[in-house]
């Protein structure tokens, strides 16, 4: 890499766990932030070499291009099952999935529930932006009541289209879950808290303390049809009230982990 900035002035650079591959995400999308937090944690914990990632189907389908570790690409919703297969034959490796709300909370509901129930020693990063991004803005299981999408053009009508699903609350009820928290990526303070949570989630796996998941409230400016900045405000004003931030399950062994 060509060094333009003097080392003493360097305050921000590409994490080692990242490749130099430019991401394909839309401007203002928080996928990039979430990716970076994972990469920083992998760097800090020196885990990259022994980590195997599982990419989903959804906007982050190409996640495997961006992390400098082994990666596999799962079928839609099946990342927790695929991660289970990897972890069971390579228990010393670190295995994480990166999944969106359609992937995890709709088509992959059975896989995520049972991976948690089994206490599968994997880490899940769950991006909740209340919409299907890749297919162009359809209703997701996490779409808020009244929220307009291309498949709920009049706004999600809970009478006919059901209610949003709160995954962290549900998964926290699983005895096999070691660490289940919800964070948000809408401002620097929350992003710092999100990173700590991702760190603890990986620590949970390293220590063999069971299933860990960090749900991240995220934006989709493109499909929400508002600017990136407005999107961040929208997360704070609409998503955080519907999906309260907090720790939903911190198992006894996990509570002592400092990040």
């Amino acid at each position, binding site marked *: 890499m060509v060094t333009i900035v003097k080392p003493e002035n360097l305050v921000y650079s590409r994490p080692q766990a990242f490749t130099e591959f430019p991401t394909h995400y839309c401007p203002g999308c928080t996928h990039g932030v979430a990716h970076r937090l994972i990469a920083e944690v992998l760097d800090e914990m020196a885990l990259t070499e022994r980590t195997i990632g599982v990419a989903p189907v959804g906007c982050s389908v190409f996640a495997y291009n961006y992390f400098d570790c082994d990666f*596999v*690409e799962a*079928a839609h919703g099946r990342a927790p099952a695929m991660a*289970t297969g990897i972890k069971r*034959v*390579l228990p010393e490796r670190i295995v994480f999935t990166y999944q969106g709300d359609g992937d995890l909370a709709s088509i992959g509901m059975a*896989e995520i529930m049972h991976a948690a129930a089994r206490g599968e020693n994997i880490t899940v990063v769950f991006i909740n932006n209340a919409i299907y991004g890749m297919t162009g803005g359809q209703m997701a299981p996490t779409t808020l009541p009244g929220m307009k999408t291309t498949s709920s053009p009049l706004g999600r009508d809970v009478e006919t289209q059901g209610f949003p699903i709160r995954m962290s609350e549900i998964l926290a009820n699983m005895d096999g879950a070691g660490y289940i928290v919800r964070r948000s990526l809408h401002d620097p303070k929350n992003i710092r808290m999100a990173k700590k949570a991702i760190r603890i989630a990986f620590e949970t796996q390293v220590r063999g303390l069971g299933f860990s998941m960090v749900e991240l409230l995220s934006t989709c400016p493109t499909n929400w049809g508002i600017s990136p900045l407005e999107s961040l405000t929208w997360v704070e004003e609409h998503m955080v009230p519907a999906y309260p931030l907090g720790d939903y399950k911190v198992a006894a062994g996990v509570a002592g982990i400092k990040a």
Partner: protein
Amino acid sequence: MPRELLKGNVAMAEAAIRAGLEAYFGYPITPQTEILEHFSKRLPELGRAFVQAESEVAAINMIYGAACTGARVMGSSSSPGVSLMMEGLSYIAGTEIPTVLINVMRGGPGLGNIAPSQGDYFQAVYGGGHGDYPRIVLAPSTVQEAIDLTVLSFDLAEKYRTVVILIADGSIGQMMEPAELPEMRPVNRVDWPWATNGAIGRERRILSSIYIDPNEEEITNLRLFERWKEIQKNEVRYKEYYCDDADFVVVGFGTAGRVALSSVRAARQQGIKVGLLRPVSLSPFPYQVLDELSKRVQAFLVVEMNMGQMLNDVLMATKGRVPVEFHGRPGGVVPFPDEILAEIQRVATTKLSVAPDPRHAWYDRMLAMTK
């Protein structure tokens, strides 16, 4: 190893273990549940991985994940469960990683029943998951063959980086026969150049079935075909009985093939010069031997436990040179030797002509028979 009296399902599971199987993921379904049960006991005691998954959908994706690491891994199910696995199998094929899958077929379509059937020939040989991918399909007809083909499946899957499907049926899964298991091979995890097992001291690897650029996907499809040509050249397997001087040849695989063996012997005792060709590899199919037989026999009789699926391949192989007659029992019915014997007698004594679809005449005979 000494001969033991072994149940087909248990024999296949133990054979896989002895071939170095490292992980199994499955879901209970009759008539193959003994496979899952055997693994649930044996794999943990050997320190290997066993997970009873929440569904066949999850199971095949666990298999997918484990196979990506280069471990020897397999799945098993029966027809409805195999249908659920087809999505994952397509991904596995598209990712070009070795995987072994056993389908102990039962009567269908739909929930059907749990009786032995061969209704999934098309699914295994031609269909299944979406997309264009060749696969190896093997069909045992005895417990010993089920053992031998299970062991072979792993070697073939790894050699050609392909999916290998073993189609047995409830009869082979449930029956006991004396058979010899192989010696226990140690687990030998190969660090394949493609395996995503952690990028320690090497470049990272990606395993995926996604090729966004259609030109790349086309190249991938062609690469699969290149491998398929090798498979066609090297891996055709079949067994011939009494074919040397045969005027007529019965063609049947698996259980239908072995039932037909009884009928062929009985017909021989009556002086009918009939032989049996039992394809063991259904994919690649033994086209060439059928092609050659069609130049010197008077007619073929295809016997299947379905409505005529392998029949298409026999028709393709014999190129309309001689009549190909069909006798099938779909829905989970297993033919008795006597009824196939009657068909052999009919074929041997009736003036036949080449029919565009032998199923039509078969259907009329079935109506008369089941009335």
